[in-house]
Every structure is written in C-alpha cells, then in structure tokens.
C-alpha cells in the first residue's frame, strides 16, 4: 500500500469526519492526489460492499460512517491494499531464512529468487548476508549444486533465530500478509491455534496481550512446520524435570494434541506460550516464596537509590511478579525476547536503567540466571511507571482509556506517562484491543498504539512517548477539545470548578456549550439582538383626557402608521385581538401591551408608549396607566426590550417616575436607563 494511502486511511480512522481543507493541511497537500487516494480506497470499499467515503462538494466536508470506518480499519489491520511486488532487502532476508527453516526440499537458488521476486543475482547477495548472520550464531548455511540450500546447526540455536526472524517479520508493516502470500501459512490452522490459545487463556486465567494473540499462532504454526520438516530434535539446555510437572505446561501441551509431535517439542511450544508477555494473570504467586522475597529486596534497594519514595510497594511487588513469571521462562530457557523500546528507554532514562541494573542481583541469584538488557529495561519500565503514579484525584474533566498491543510494562509506562501529562483526564486503565470495547462507552477519548474500530475519538500514540511525542499528543488533544464545544465547556467548567456552585455545574456547562455552539455570525446577531430598543422622543406619548380605549389605542398607533412601521391591517388586527384578550396582554401592573403578529403587517420593529395621566378603562374593565403598543418585526427581537420595560414597571420607584413624568425627556431618562446587569436572558 502506498504510504500516502495508508496515512490517509489512518487519518480518517482517527478523525471520523473532516473536511477537504483539513485533510490537505494534515496529510496530503495536493488536491488531485487526495482525490486519487480516496478513489483507490473507495474502490476497495465498494468491492467489500461498504459505504464509500463521501465528500460534500458544496462545503468540502468529508463524512465517514460506521460501515466505512470498519472497512478502513480492516484496510490497515490486514494490509488489504498492499502491493507485494517489491520486498525490502531486510524483509527478504528474514523471509528466506524462514523458508530455509521450514522446508525439507533444499531449494535451489532459482526457487529462492522466485519466492522473493528478485533476480538470481540479488538472491545470491541476500544469501551471502544470511550466511554471515548465521555464522555469528554458530549456524551453517549449506549449499551443494545437487542438494540446494539448507541450514544446519544446533536445533536450539536454529529455533531461537527462527523465532526471532518470524517476530521481526510480524512486527514489520504487513508482515503477516507477506508470510501469507509467500505461502508459508495455512489460515485454517492458524485460526484454530488462535482459538485454542483463547481457550487456554480461560483455562489458565491469563490474558495474553493482543500482540501475542495475533503473533503466537503464527509463531506456533511455523514452529510446528519446522519441527515436522527437520529431523533434528531439540535438546533442552537445562533440566526440564522441575518444569515438566508444572500444571500449566501440561495443560498447554494438550493444545497441540493433534500435531503428531514428540513430547519434547510439545513442551517447547508450551514454553513459547508461557514465556509470552501477559496483561494479567491470576497464576498463584505466593508472597512468601523465595522469588517474592528477592523481588522485595530489589524493590527496597531501588527505593533507597531513588530521589522519590516508591508508593504502595506491595502492589508494585505483585506487578513485578506478574511480569517476572513469563520472563523467568525466557531468562532461564534463553528464549528470544524483543523489547523494541530497549535503546530508547536507556537513552531517555539512563539513571533508572543504571539503578535497576545494580539492584537485580537478588532476583538473578534466585532464578540462577542473569537478566538480559531487554528484560532489565522491562523491569525499569515498570518501576518508572510506578514513579509516575501520583495520588489519585477525585475529579476529572474527561475519561479515557489506553489500548496497547504490548505487554504490561509497555502499556503501564504509556498509561502512567499519559496520566502524568493530563491531570484532568481520568484514565480507566490499559486494555488489550480485544477487551477495550467493554469500556468504550464510558470514556471520552481513547489513546491507542494501533488504529481501532471505534466511534470514540482516538489518538494514535507511540508506545514510547519521548519529549517530542508528548508535545505532539498534547497539541492534538488541545486542538480536538478546541473544536468540540461540549468538551471545551467541560474543560472550562473543570478549570473553574472551585468557583462554581456544585449544583450549577450542569447548568454552567450547558450555557458554555450554547455559547461555543453559536457560530461567530450568530453571536454577532445575538449581541445586536440583545441591544435594547432605543426609545426616543417620538416613542413617548402622553394622554391627559379620559377617553375610550379605542381612541387611546388609535392615538398610540398613529405614530407607528405614520412612521411606516405597520400596515392598516396590523392596527385592525390589534384592535380585534385586544378587545378580546386585553386581560392577557399585560406588561406590568396597569400596563397593557396591545400587539398582533409580525405577519399581520409589521415593516419594522417599533413601539409607542402611551402614558395615561388619567386612567383609561380597558376592554377587561380595569384601568390602564400605561399602554405600550408593540409592532414586533419577528418573534424574538422585542423580548429584551419588553423584559427591560417589565422590570421598570415592576419597580415601584421607576414605575411612579414614568407615570408622573412631566415631559418626554423625564420619561426617557427612566426608560432608557440601563439597569445593572444584562436585562436580557
């Protein structure tokens, strides 16, 4: 798959919806190539019978719906659109090595060249390099004209190298697809191995990491091929007696009941599973046994060398024991282990690495083996993560979870790093890709090291966050929150929480969301709206006579008609309605509000305030002191002004001042006086 396309697919998985402009900014600068990429992806989606990525031609918005997202997820997960015409040299070496280990046919140079689709000459160069690699490990690459190529050496060493190569291929992008397309795998067998592994997890109450549940079946399958195709038998470098009795090994060996392998090979396979990193395990760990004592000594030693105190050491002890269980199998049986973060960690935390290196000798003594650099880094990561742990706070603005395909130590460090970075996010924990769905609904964000099929906002992060990566993720989150009114409001409410009455939380939050949700235009409009009608001389009228209400109304309406604010029809309607419902058309005590609807003939908003010095009897038989004739231009514009007037009328002092005003100026002084605070709500 072209990098451009995979970048784009990843972007869409992370963002769910977007716009052409945003994509151009972030992924693909060229409009034409963006269109080409989307066409490619859509072609695939159509084949899969899924909905395509839609671009709104009007506004450039890109919509990704549920079905599309799932399709995109599978594109990345299984490398569906991958081009296999070219295989990089390192990948070729690994694939050739694997081939040589699982075949008993002793392939000729041409066979190997065809396999990885290069010329004979290139294949020969590859094989030369392989020969060098192998000789370093005391394994021989043999060639005879008659018999072709083969590897020979101690089976233990070959298997170790073999597994390393498989894991290397699987770790590379589309590694699985390479193995599959070169015909190394049988999908059905792999599927069954995977199912059996999942059953084993239940039986032994362990949870393998996602990475393991994906990779182990492949490793086991290829190992079985190796065992079947080579006559060499495996000689354990160590005494199996004490292990053989272990219930776990016996249980795991039954996983391979139909493989026709001898008992020792089955043990070897079982050890592969047992030595794999696990997320959790309830395998009994006695706290009084030797190992646990040794670990405690190590923890205490580390503690004295650190500037900070390690909190909750018993919990840390359990954590380390959980990790050590499979690790001990690896260490004692010298099984291959890859910790991709080894060098990076040592570079970033040299002091921590040094302290751990100095402090593990009690454990080494206990297991009677020395701990490799990779394993040391794993231990250091667990303890570093522990230091990041701070006292849990009670309140958070957001909830998030972490999805990590790697084992406990990697995901723990990632989790704690993130916790440390975002004090306002409550982290539910680190989960395997297979398990995060159970908690998906409870969170606002997901931090993941792999693309996920989820409607939640996902941030793809590296398993190891260095300074630059931390900055990048912080920016990404800020940006996301800034574009999301609800989340922005929550962040703001959280920030102000000490100053907000707790029971008003939701209310304040809703208000802020309201505010953010209004587009800039609307906000402008609203602020214009909220401006009160500015009353001028011509809006204020006085009436000294005691006349019929119709005449009084006519007197107040006349200026509206002459200003062209209303039509004859509007005034007609107004009389009709007011006669019928005057008792409902109030704006204060003894204040009447005759009005009709905008559609009855209003050209522009207008008011007439008629101050009746002598009370005038209204249709409802009561007396009016003030009549406010309203010409509403729409359904909302007048509301702030009416509320303002209502407030004035309800206050005895201002009401009296208006009623007893000697002239328009006096009345206007009161009416146009801005009250403290926003009269509009």
């Amino acid at each position: 798959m072209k990098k451009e396309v995979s970048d784009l697919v990843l972007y869409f998985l992370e963002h769910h919806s977007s716009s052409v402009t945003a994509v151009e900014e972030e992924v693909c600068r060229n409009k034409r190539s963006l269109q080409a990429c989307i066409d490619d992806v859509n072609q695939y989606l159509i084949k899969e019978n899924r909905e395509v990525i839609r671009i709104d031609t009007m506004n450039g918005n890109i919509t990704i719906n549920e079905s599309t997202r799932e399709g995109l997820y599978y594109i990345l997960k299984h490398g569906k659109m991958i081009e296999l015409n070219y295989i990089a040299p390192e990948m070729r070496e690994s694939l050739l090595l694997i081939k040589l280990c699982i075949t008993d046919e002793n392939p000729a140079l041409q066979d190997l060249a065809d396999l990885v689709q290069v010329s004979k000459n290139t294949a020969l160069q590859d094989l030369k390099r392989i020969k060098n690699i192998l000789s370093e490990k005391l394994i021989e690459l043999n060639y005879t004209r008659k018999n072709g190529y083969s590897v020979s050496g101690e089976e233990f060493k070959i298997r170790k190298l073999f597994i390393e190569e498989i894991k290397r291929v699987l770790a590379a992008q589309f590694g699985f697809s390479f193995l599959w397309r070169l015909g190394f795998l049988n999908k059905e067998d792999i599927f069954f191995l995977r199912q059996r592994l999942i059953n084993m997890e239940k039986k032994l109450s362990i949870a393998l990491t996602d990475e393991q549940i994906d990779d182990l079946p492949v490793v086991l399958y290829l190992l079985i091929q190796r065992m079947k195709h080579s006559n060499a038998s495996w000689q354990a470098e160590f005494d199996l007696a004490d292990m053989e009795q272990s219930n776990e090994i016996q249980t795991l060996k039954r996983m391979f009941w139909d493989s026709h392998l001898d008992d020792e090979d089955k043990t070897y396979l079982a050890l592969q599973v047992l030595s794999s990193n696990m997320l959790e395990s309830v395998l009994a760990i006695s706290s009084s046994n030797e190992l646990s004592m040794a670990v405690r000594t190590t923890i205490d030693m580390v503690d004295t060398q650190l500037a900070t105190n390690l909190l909750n050491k018993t919990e840390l002890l359990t954590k380390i024991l959980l990790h050590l269980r499979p690790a001990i199998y690896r260490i004692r049986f010298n099984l291959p282990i890859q910790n991709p973060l080894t060098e990076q960690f040592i570079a970033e935390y040299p002091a921590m690495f040094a302290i751990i290196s100095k402090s593990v000798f009690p454990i080494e003594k206990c297991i009677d083996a020395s701990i490799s650099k990779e394993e040391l880094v794993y231990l250091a990561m667990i303890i570093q993560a522990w230091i990041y742990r701070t006292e849990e706070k009670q309140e958070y603005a957001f909830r998030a979870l972490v999805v990590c395909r790697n084992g406990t130590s990697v995901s723990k460090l990632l989790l704690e790093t993130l916790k440390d970075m975002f004090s306002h996010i409550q982290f539910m924990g680190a989960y395997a890709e297979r398990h995060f769905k159970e908690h998906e609904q409870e969170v606002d964000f997901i931090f993941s090291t792999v693309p996920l099929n989820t409607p939640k906002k996902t941030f793809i992060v590296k398993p190891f966050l260095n300074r630059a990566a931390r900055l990048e993720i912080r920016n990404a989150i800020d940006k996301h929150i800034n574009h999301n009114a609800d989340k922005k409001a929550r962040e703001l409410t959280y920030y102000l929480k000490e100053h907000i009455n707790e029971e008003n939380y939701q209310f304040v939050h809703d208000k802020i969301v309201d505010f953010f949700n209004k587009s800039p235009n609307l906000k402008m409009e609203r602020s214009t709206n909220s401006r009160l009608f500015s009353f001028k001389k011509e809006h204020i009228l006085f009436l000294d006579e005691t006349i019929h209400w119709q005449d009084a109304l006519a007197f107040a309406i006349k200026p509206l008609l002459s200003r062209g604010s209303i039509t004859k029809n509007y005034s007609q309607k107004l009389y009709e309605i007011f006669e019928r419902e005057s008792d409902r058309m109030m704006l204060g005590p003894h204040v009447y509000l005759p009005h009709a609807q905008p559609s009855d003939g209003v050209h522009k908003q207008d008011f007439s305030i008629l101050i009746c010095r002598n009370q005038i009897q209204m249709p409802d038989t009561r007396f009016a002191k003030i009549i406010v004739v309203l010409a509403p231009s729409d359904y909302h514009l007048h509301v702030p002004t009416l509320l303002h007037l209502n407030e004035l009328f309800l206050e005895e002092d201002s009401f009296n001042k208006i009623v007893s005003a000697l002239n328009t100026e006096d009345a206007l002084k009161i009416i146009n006086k801005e009250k403290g605070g926003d009269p509009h709500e």
Partner: protein
Amino acid sequence: MKTVIVACGSGVATSQTVASKVKKILNENGVKANVEAVDIKSLDQYIKTSHVYIAITKAKKEYDIPTLNGIAFLTGMGMKEETEKLISLLKS
C-alpha cells in the same frame, strides 16, 4: 431536565417575554429547567412532554400537568406565589 412551556393565544410578545422572564427567575434560584415559548396551536402536543404549563391565554380546557398563571409574572400580582409553585414543581 424538566420542561416548562409557555403559550399565549394571540400575540407573540407575551409568551416570549414570560418565557424569558421565567428562565431568568429560575436561573437566579438555581433551578435547572428547559423553558420554551410554544405556539398555542400545538399546545396539546407539547403538553405530553412537559411538566409545567404556564398559561397566558384563557384556559379553554383542563390539562393533565400543573398550570400556572403567566400574567402574574408580568404584572407582579401573584408573582411570588406562582414562582414558589413553579420552583417546588420543578424540584419535586
């Protein structure tokens, strides 16, 4: 959140103004509610999903939900009583 609806029969100004005023009063009292001015023609429909009806029009029929006098909020006459009733209805 509970919903309060305000409806008036003829004009447009009164129900809008009462709704705004009620919102403001509720805010000041720290009571959360959704206050809406609605068209009298679709009142029956709104009544079903609302908790309190503030009437400005003359009641033509009885409704199942508590009904308050909207004019009180404008004239100030009986406003205190109606406000107390409203708040206790929304808090219950």
